[in-house]
């Protein structure tokens, strides 16, 4: 398979890969390894920050290069912004950005689900 330059770049440099836990960390995951794609996000949203700003993101992905690249890009985009269950761009726009084949659209929805689960947990704590 031929990958776009962006996909190749983010896939080869997943600086945010990993996991983190702690009092200000919120986790969300989706998919399953058995089904061939699994994604987990850990978002650090300090409780002292009234605006719920994301300070750091870590992710794990048992997934294809497109998904790994999108996860890394998301991790970079989220820092400094308020936690939001929505992606910075629509799934279709992300698909176009990384030239993800149409048959992989379902994989991007799993990324979106994992992201929404992590961000949702952070928002829930903020609103509590």
């Amino acid at each position, binding site marked *: 398979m031929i*990958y776009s330059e962006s996909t190749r770049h983010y896939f080869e440099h997943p600086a945010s890969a990993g996991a983190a836990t702690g009092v200000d960390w919120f986790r969300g995951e989706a998919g399953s390894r058995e089904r*061939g794609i699994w994604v987990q996000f850990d978002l650090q949203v300090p409780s002292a920050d009234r605006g719920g700003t994301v300070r750091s993101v870590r992710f794990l992905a048992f*997934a294809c290069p497109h998904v790994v690249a999108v996860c890394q890009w998301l991790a970079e985009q989220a820092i400094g912004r308020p936690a939001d269950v929505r992606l910075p761009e629509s799934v279709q726009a992300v698909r176009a950005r990384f030239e993800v084949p149409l048959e992989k659209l379902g994989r991007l929805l799993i990324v979106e689900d994992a992201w929404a689960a992590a961000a949702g947990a952070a928002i829930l704590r903020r609103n509590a």
Partner: protein
Amino acid sequence: MPVTPAVRYLDYAATTPVAPEVALRMSECLSAHGEFGNPSSANHDFGIRAAGQVESARAQVAACVGAEPAEVVWTSGATEANNLAIFGIAHYYRGSGKHIVTARTEHKSVLDCCRELERRGWQVTYLTPGPEGVLEPEQIAEALLPQTVLVSVMHINNELGTIQDIAAIAAVCARSHQARLHVDAAQSVGKIRLDFASLGVDLLSLSAHKAYGPKGAGALVVCRRRAVQLAPLMHGGGQERSLRPGTIATHQVVGMGAAFALAHAESPGETERLRALRERLWQGLGALGGVWRNGDPLRSVPHILNVSFEGVEGESLVADVGVRIAVSTGSACTSAQREPSYVLRALGRDERLAESSLRFSLGRYSSSADVDAAIDAMTRSVKRLRGISGA
């Protein structure tokens, strides 16, 4: 092997480069100063000289596999040879029966022929080899029916390297009154000694480009002693006893003949050299942990190693190592579909492990430096991807 400076080639089971000696012989058949004539033009010297080259090549191929030159029918490759064998037998003997026996782990060019025959009313029994890819002769015996006209089994599995016991399978087929045995030997030449005359095989498919010959050349060896008959797939000329009409590509078959002559002369030391390189590769990969060797190492050709890697996603693995080493996932013909290897799935590997399996295949120009580079590339990629996936 100078493919590109950065990428090491470990995909010799997919194809091999044309040997320099072979390329030279081929080029001599192309230009005005060489044997460019039509080998069917028996009325002038150009054609006669070209025909002589074609027959010399036929003798070289026959000698390499222990057959008679008259038993060699030129084709465009092993895929066409498989088509000619399967459809040729099925149609010629359709009055005797419409049952075929084959294995789930055969090459697509055999399986797709069988599926097409099923659509046309034939019955096909697909056998499942044992977990290491070995087909037991008893399985063939149990599958044979009075109306079985063909058994098609590959000599060496292209993904695993597993060697089937063709002589034993042939003995089983011989007990049937009409089942002919076709063997796809595309991966065999230069790797394991073949003796068509003593194996008891009726039809043997051969490929040039797996043995340092050109792509687009192959042959079907048809046993004359047992008077095997075939219905042709194409019509339009009398070449190749009307089994494969069309002007013979002199340069292609001369290249195949030269490549097979080189393979025939290759020393047994080359087999041991490749086996040692393969085991060095396996030792290096095994150190990673969570790796599985697919196939039976005691019954495999020396140059193929198929390994599954736990905890890494298949497509990412291929994408990551592909910038450093050239290897295959599944067979080359099905890789574009990004489906787990049907061969490994047929042998019971789970879908995830089958997806994260790679075939490494070594060849004449492989070196210990290539193997060490592959170990290094795989170690880096597997560790990196396991880190990303949290495995």
